[in-house]
């Protein structure tokens, strides 16, 4: 690396003023925190929207004071209309999938820790990195703008199925400019994510410190790397899909709108388009997106579990290969979202096989985690609890995937709460648990102060029990036939299910309130927490070899040299039961 740095100089001076330091920063650590803050803001909004939805589902006529201020047409007198329920649904899904599940585990932690864990001083392209974040922020603002325009947010769901998403105002409230903003926002988001993914890949390939072979990278670095490869391809497909959607909406083209389509008693002036085309393009992005959300959390959780168990996993290599195979298979399964879309049934069968095949690497990973935990003397902390909680959520939510992967069963369950329960647990909550685990684990490194453990563990138990109370009953509702996307259930066969719905709503409000403990802990610990030492968890990887918080150039101008695999635990080292990656002392093995 010395030779390379002497040859090719790519440097920038220390940040000067406030703007350079905290706002338009080129420092990957600041950018990581910015992504984290954006994710936090988006998750608070997304959660508030889900409260409104849950509230409306069980008390559809009850007034929510002040809600009319959010939308006069959508909530006249503070009562949510069925259409506005769909607006909330759309915005909840879009915020959560794009701005939380993609941003927090991948862009935020990846930005902060990937360069440090490979021994680099920054990302390969710091300016691109800054542009990535600011582009993502613009995408966020454009999306949020839909709340304030008179048209309101779109009602198409986060998947925005054509042709209703493509025809314009006739499709309902919010489907005029609200939907335009959605399309523009997601297109901008794609650009930001593509730049980010490109940066991650180039950084991992080229900026590794001396001795940091690919197989010596920590598991979470691998996870971010694999995720960026997936993101690069996925967002490269969603961007054209959004461009064609915007053209159908604004330029009169007919990519997605078929002939003779009558919406709101009006014959649409389009012809010959294919609504299924949108679904193919969207889910070609959409399924890999699930792994963009979950893989980083798998990496973070593996990283934390190893540290808490004080011993390596049964096989870190197999975990990495499993993540690679998940990434590879994710390109062949998009059709399993379309079993009820009118696709040829033979295609359904073809998509079913690789979908079931994905369960193999996922099961292997789970068995490795559980097998490694067997007999381990795990150090209980908020971070390790959330890591264990991740495995629990991933298994509980993943098991229902075996059923949904089969077209014959999916056709029955597809439009029900069963699917809602499945994806919320396996990709939503599981991924968020990974983010919580990462936050409790790395907060000290990122801010210089440790988070409060007692509050952290309390937060874990309330969240863990709460999320099970919310999402497990969804499966039962679905099996009984409770359809999803309906804004209210009155006087039909779902009547006897209302007590369960009420239970879920109360659990959701309670679990949401428990997150205030987390927010309080974040703010309190930031200013009043115990000062963090360099290596509070006796970790082995490079982030623990530098001060907390790290200096702006990470390693203080030094170039670390790597001597070991990332997880030298359960060995006799000079500092205890571990040997750091950059320590020249010989490992026991």
């Amino acid at each position: 690396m010395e030779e390379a740095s002497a040859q090719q100089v790519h440097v920038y001076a220390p940040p000067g003023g406030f703007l350079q330091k905290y706002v338009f920063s080129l420092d990957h650590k600041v950018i990581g925190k910015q992504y984290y803050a954006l994710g936090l803001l988006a998750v608070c909004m997304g959660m508030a929207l889900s409260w409104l939805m849950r509230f409306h589902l069980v008390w559809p006529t009850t007034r929510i004071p002040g809600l009319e201020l959010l939308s006069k047409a959508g909530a006249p007198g503070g009562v949510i209309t069925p259409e506005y329920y769909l607006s909330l649904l759309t915005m909840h899904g879009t915020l959560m999938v794009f701005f939380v599940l993609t941003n927090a585990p991948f862009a935020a932690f990846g930005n902060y820790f990937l360069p440090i864990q490979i021994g680099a001083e920054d990302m390969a392209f710091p300016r691109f990195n800054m542009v990535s974040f600011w582009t993502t922020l613009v995408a966020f603002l454009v999306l949020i703008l839909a709340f304030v325009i008179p048209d309101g947010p779109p009602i198409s769901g986060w998947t925005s199925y054509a042709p209703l998403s493509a025809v314009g105002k006739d499709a309902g409230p919010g489907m005029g400019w609200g939907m335009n903003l959605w399309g523009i926002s997601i297109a901008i988001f794609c650009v930001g994510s593509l730049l980010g993914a490109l940066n991650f890949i180039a950084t991992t390939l080229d900026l590794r410190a001396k001795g940091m072979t690919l197989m010596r990278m920590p598991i979470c670095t691998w996870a971010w790397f694999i995720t960026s490869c997936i993101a690069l391809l996925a967002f490269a497909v969603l961007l054209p899909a959004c461009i064609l959607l915007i053209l159908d909406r604004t330029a009169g083209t007919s990519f997605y709108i078929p002939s003779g389509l009558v919406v709101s008693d009006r014959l649409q002036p389009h012809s010959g388009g294919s609504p299924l085309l949108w679904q193919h393009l969207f889910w070609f992005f959409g399924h890999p997106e699930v792994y963009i959300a979950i893989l980083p959390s798998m990496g973070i959780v593996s990283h934390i579990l190893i540290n808490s168990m004080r011993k390596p996993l049964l096989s870190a290599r197999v975990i990495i290969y499993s993540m690679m195979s998940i990434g590879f298979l994710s390109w062949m399964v998009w059709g399993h979202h379309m079993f009820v879309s009118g696709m040829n049934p033979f295609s359904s069968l073809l998509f079913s096989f690789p979908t079931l095949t994905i369960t193999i690497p996922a099961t292997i990973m789970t068995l490795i985690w559980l097998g490694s935990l067997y007999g381990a003397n795990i150090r209980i902390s908020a971070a390790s609890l959330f890591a264990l909680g991740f495995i629990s959520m991933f298994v509980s939510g993943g098991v229902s995937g075996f059923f949904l992967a089969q077209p014959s069963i999916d056709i029955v369950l597809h439009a029900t709460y069963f699917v809602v329960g499945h994806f919320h647990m396996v990709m939503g909550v599981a991924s968020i648990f990974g983010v919580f685990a990462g936050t409790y684990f790395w907060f000290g490194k990122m801010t210089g102060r440790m988070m409060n453990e007692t509050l952290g563990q309390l937060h874990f138990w309330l969240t863990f029990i709460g999320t099970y109370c919310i999402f497990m009953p969804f499966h039962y509702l679905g099996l009984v036939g409770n359809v999803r996307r309906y804004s209210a259930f009155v006087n039909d066969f779902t009547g006897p299910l209302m007590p369960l719905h009420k239970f879920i709503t109360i659990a959701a409000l309670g679990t949401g309130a428990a997150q205030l403990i987390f927010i309080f802990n974040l703010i309190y610990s930031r200013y009043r927490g115990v000062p963090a030492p360099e290596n509070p968890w006796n970790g082995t990887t490079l982030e623990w070899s530098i001060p907390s918080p790290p200096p702006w150039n990470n390693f203080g101008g030094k170039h670390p040299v790597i001597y070991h695999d990332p997880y030298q635990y359960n060995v006799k080292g000079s500092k205890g039961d571990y040997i750091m990656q950059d320590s020249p002392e010989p490992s026991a093995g």
Partner: protein
Amino acid sequence: MSSTIYQPVRAPSTLRGSTASTARVAKVLSGSGGASRSGIWVGIFAITMSFAAFTSALFVRQGSAADWTHITLPSLLYANTLALLLSSATLQMARRAIAAVPTMESRTARRGLGWLLATLALGFVFVAGQYEAWRQLAAQGLYLATNPNSSFYYVLTAMHGLHVLAGIAALIFVMSRLAARPAALRRSTFEATATYWHFMGVLWLYLLLVLRTKL
């Protein structure tokens, strides 16, 4: 390309760890020459994926209804193609000229400038030609929304054109550096720009094939 935040440093000696304690030490991104190379290839991969999505949309759309027609491509497109291919050749000449100089600080590095200017001019010729081809189609009454064929024609050429404009911006950046401060231009930046520019030609040949056979 702001120069206030991003300051290239000439002397490699300041990069070593010994000066780490001083606040003035610059942040070093070692090995970034390789990073530009992988960066540009990763970018090319993503762009390829995007155009694969556009063209598969074209195939699906063609099969989805009976309204697929035929449009005759303006013959100007072939002249544009020639301009773009020529620009790749002139860029190769510039590459050769610059590869021959031992360091970028040497004034002889500017020998490539003339060839780059030719490349840039041909790039502009291509873009202007593509615009003129649009006007010719519009004169025939073929607009973006006239039929699916014209829709795809405009979308594919516009998307390619946008990418070419990005290449033109990169060329202008490289040339201004070469003219004003050749030492501040990294070879890897130049190489990445050249790779991207050649890829624009390859991509256009592919698109021309698609347009010619499908529209």
